[in-house]
């Protein structure tokens, strides 16, 4: 499901003394089925932008078109917003703080029940959603309290609660913040799976540039409420000066390649490779060891 943002501006407390322009003339397109990342420092407007994707905020000016549904302050009717929120799921930062029900089943079922779906359908959705986040679906587990789970599991229960609404687009604010390695990998695996199997469009808001480089197809960098940079990670993170001007740092892999180049090392194909260890290692090895290998061969011949 595509998201098109056209000349979007958003002003908090419009007309009041503490008026604050959070977004200024932002235009961008997130195509269907991709994983987009929104990056920027605290206060750059990332969360404000994300909250427009399911109508939690409505544009002060400009518009947001989610899968053909036009969201502007003027055109939006309540039923319109309801449909929008069905299509776009939003997972806030530290979503486990929003768990509230006595059992895991009740917590995940809360959303679908609000849609007045039949009990049988609700149950199916709960099982499907827990399955999608790689948690058990047996009755013993369903009857447990979500508060007795580990941090990573609680976050996945919160994610399941959003997924039970069967959104076509999922926007996640800092999905891995505060999780340990294992829990982080589990969340990433869930997201990869949702994309591959369900074709869910993902929008990730993140501080973690490595995470962004790893997950995203396209990056949008905000600074001071304006869109400063966009493109695939390996292109965006090459523009070091512009990234720094946004208050950000390229991920360590991009920093390393750039620094190596500055130090006069031949980085060869690593310059254009995707920013993953798997892609960079052969490129770096080839550029470093090429002469050496060639020489070794000659050496044997003589």
């Amino acid at each position, binding site marked *: 499901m595509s998201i098109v943002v056209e000349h979007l501006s958003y002003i908090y407390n419009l007309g009041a003394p503490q008026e604050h322009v959070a977004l200024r003339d932002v235009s961008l397109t997130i195509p269907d089925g991709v994983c987009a990342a929104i990056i920027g420092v605290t206060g750059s407007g990332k969360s404000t932008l994300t909250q427009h994707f399911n109508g939690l905020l409505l544009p002060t000016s400009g518009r947001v078109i989610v899968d053909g549904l036009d969201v502007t302050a003027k055109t939006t009717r309540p039923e319109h917003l309801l449909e929008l929120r069905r299509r776009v799921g939003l997972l806030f930062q530290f979503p486990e703080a929003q768990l509230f029900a006595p059992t895991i089943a009740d917590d995940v079922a809360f959303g679908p029940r609000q849609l007045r779906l039949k009990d049988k359908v609700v149950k199916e959705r709960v099982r499907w959603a827990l399955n999608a986040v790689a948690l058990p679906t047996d009755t013993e587990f369903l009857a447990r309290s979500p508060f007795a789970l*580990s941090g990573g599991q609680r976050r996945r229960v919160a994610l399941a609660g959003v997924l039970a609404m069967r959104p076509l687009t999922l926007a996640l604010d800092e999905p891995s913040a505060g999780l*340990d390695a294992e829990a982080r990998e589990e969340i990433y695996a869930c997201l990869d799976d949702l994309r591959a199997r369900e074709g869910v469009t993902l929008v990730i808001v993140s501080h973690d540039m490595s995470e962004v480089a790893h997950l995203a197809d396209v990056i949008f960098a905000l600074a001071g409420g304006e869109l400063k940079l966009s493109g695939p990670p390996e292109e965006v993170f090459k523009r070091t000066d512009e990234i720094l001007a946004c208050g950000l740092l390229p991920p*360590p*892999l991009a920093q390393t390649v750039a*620094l190596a180049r500055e130090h006069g090392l031949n980085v060869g194909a690593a310059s254009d490779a995707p920013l993953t*260890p798997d892609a960079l290692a052969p490129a*770096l090895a080839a550029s470093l060891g090429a002469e050496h290998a060639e020489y070794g061969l000659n*050496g044997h011949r003589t």
Partner: protein
Amino acid sequence: MTTQPPLVAQSIGAPEHAPTLGEVALHLENVVYRYPSITNAPTSLLAAKIAPALAGVTLDVRRGEYVALLGHNGSGKSTLARLLNALLLPTSGHVYVLGHNTADRSEHRAIRDLVGMIFSDPDNQIVATIVEDDVAWGLAARGYPLAQVHARAEAAINAVGLSAHKRRAPNELSGGQRQRLAIAGVLALEPVCLIADEPTALLDPQARVEMLGLLHTLNRERGLTIIHVTHLLEEAALADRIVILERGRIVREGTPTEVFADLESLRSLKLIIPELGVLGERLRALGVDIPPDALTPQLFVAALERLEGHYRQTQHGGAQ
């Protein structure tokens, strides 16, 4: 490193010389800590069914040392940090701060002057509405003469680079600046040791690098003992010593080079292996001998340069 790395405002290279370490500042003797009731325990421990948060930790930290305390969520690292300035008292065993036993309540004032602490969220310890008042607060509360309060506060503000902001309100500062303000409040008391519990967790990328730089500067230039609690290997890469906790026990201890030599075993401790660590692994598999402790871009590029020089030399030597 000869050239200034261009990517970061305040970059951190390898320590140029081993610091001279002093007497034992912190001494832990078989420390066990059990949270008194389930409701007081961090939620991560609930799942662990009330195993003790610390299960027998013995550790010495010398004056001037920079120790990184690593571990995943719930490994006991924050509990250990809180035992070091008597915020928590051991269930059994002993914690000594420069000879003061934390079990002795009459020593707590002295201990907390010697060991300061900052957390992820600086807002939890900012008490005043003006930067310089906030830094002076701890001194004023202890009844220091006014002239000394001003002088020390001023020096602390300068040390963290906030002198341009001393008349501003803390809420006008950025997250990184507020974290530096929290450090200044601690420094004003002229402690021997600073405990930083995940100090970069809520900071933006550039502020993270600056915070790390500030901690190392305070350590190198003022001899401040640093206990840096973190779950990130790359933040520990420049420490003098790394201590890894798992289930309330020390499971690894040594210099970054020693501890990072076996990244695979750190993975089994649920630590996140930085992407540069993974890149190093892939390169080693391809026969490129990057040391496993090259976990920052600067260290990694330095290693690449050494290798390139080595290859060039081999080629040159062979051509003769």
